[in-house]
């Protein structure tokens, strides 16, 4: 399992697509928003937490199809399935690798982009906290979607259609934490709910993903 994680991370670094693309996309989305809604700082301050969350979510979505598709195409998944690793473990490691290469950089980059959007001073801590708690759920849910659409031509579009509705609760609670934090309100309740979704997804969804993957491999 550790070998699989190390290999995925090494591949992400070598291929360059892992860290860079998601971050660049996040940056571009954040930069485009002021062009769309106007440069008034008051407005930007108000919408900053939500924009950052949506940007992070879309950047996450962008790289989902790479989680499993590459290993599917070159036959690695077949070989892994015959290896002494449980399929649940394989999908969990894959999701973890995706989070480290995509989710974690987004968490770290969010405050910088928050400056561009004139995020309220109190919001910086909470955008980091909410993304750090919420992005693991995005990676795990995304891995489930990737497992469903593996091997399908035009899978990318379908993947988005399947995964985005599943992202709704995470987005709502995550953005709520960031917004309340930025407004200086208490964040306890939404933060607990967000953590609950993340933990629940991390604990249970790998079983669904593994089942789906087994069906797709046969």
């Amino acid at each position, binding site marked *: 399992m*550790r*070998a*699989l994680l190390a*290999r995925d991370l*090494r*591949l992400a670094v*070598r*291929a360059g697509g892992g860290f860079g693309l998601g971050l660049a996309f996040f940056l571009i989305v954040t930069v485009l928003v002021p062009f769309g809604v106007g440069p008034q700082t008051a407005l930007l301050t108000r919408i900053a937490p939500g924009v950052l969350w949506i940007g992070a979510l879309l950047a996450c979505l962008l790289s989902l199809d790479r989680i499993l598709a590459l*290993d599917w*195409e*070159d*036959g*690695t998944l*077949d*070989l*892994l*399935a*015959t*290896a*002494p*690793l449980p399929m649940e473990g394989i999908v969990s490691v894959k999701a973890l690798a995706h989070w480290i290469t995509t989710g974690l950089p987004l968490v770290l980059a969010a405050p910088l982009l928050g400056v561009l959007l004139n995020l309220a001073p109190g919001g910086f801590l909470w955008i980091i906290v909410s993304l750090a708690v919420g992005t693991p759920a995005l990676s795990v849910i995304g891995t489930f979607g990737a497992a469903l659409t593996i091997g399908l031509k035009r899978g990318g579009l379908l993947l988005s259609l399947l995964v985005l509705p599943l992202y709704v609760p995470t987005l709502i609670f995550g953005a709520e934490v960031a917004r309340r934090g930025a407004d200086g309100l208490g964040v306890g309740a939404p933060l607990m709910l967000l953590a609950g979704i993340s933990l629940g997804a991390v604990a249970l969804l790998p079983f669904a993903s593994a089942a789906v993957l087994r069906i797709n*491999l*046969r």
Partner: protein
Amino acid sequence: MVLTVTDLEISRGGRAVLEGVHFTLLPGAALILRGPNGVGKTTLLRTVAGLQPASGGHISGADDTIAYAGHSDGLKSMLTVTENLDFWASVFGRSDIGAALDAFDLRGLASRLAGNLSAGQKRRLGLARLMVTGRPVWVLDEPTVSLDAASVGLFVAAVRGHLGQGGSAILATHIDLGLQEAAVLDLSVFRASPRAAQADEAFL
């Protein structure tokens, strides 16, 4: 490890292709599957490897004993030859890849990226992977595709070495490997009769 297949029935795309397949693979023995295209060699090998369920019959002795090599080698083009082998070795809980590098004459290529290898060299790397798994039963689907005569020789020597250590191998191939000790099984005799059970039987 004795691999026993009894009365196996397999289907592809909801259609039964083979039925009543039975054979026993003893340690040190090799079995070559033959039959025309489409007879179900790949499907049979994938079933034996546990990648797809059989529609009937039993396979025993296949749990955690199989090293499978299919049409694709599962290589990462951005990793070097050594890194690819190291990865598979550690997945199977082992660490020594030296013997595999030697057996398939990959020493000189050890630090090259797999993406820069020729098709035949990639295939050799894919087959070297079998040796680092430490699994006793090799399940090989067309292992000699894109190999030249010298490489086929290396492969046959590796299989002989594996058999000599008490391992066994089952392979589907069209060419004559010169592996005289191997038994040959023609799958045409197991071809499923048209009236055989189908996945969609319920709808007839």
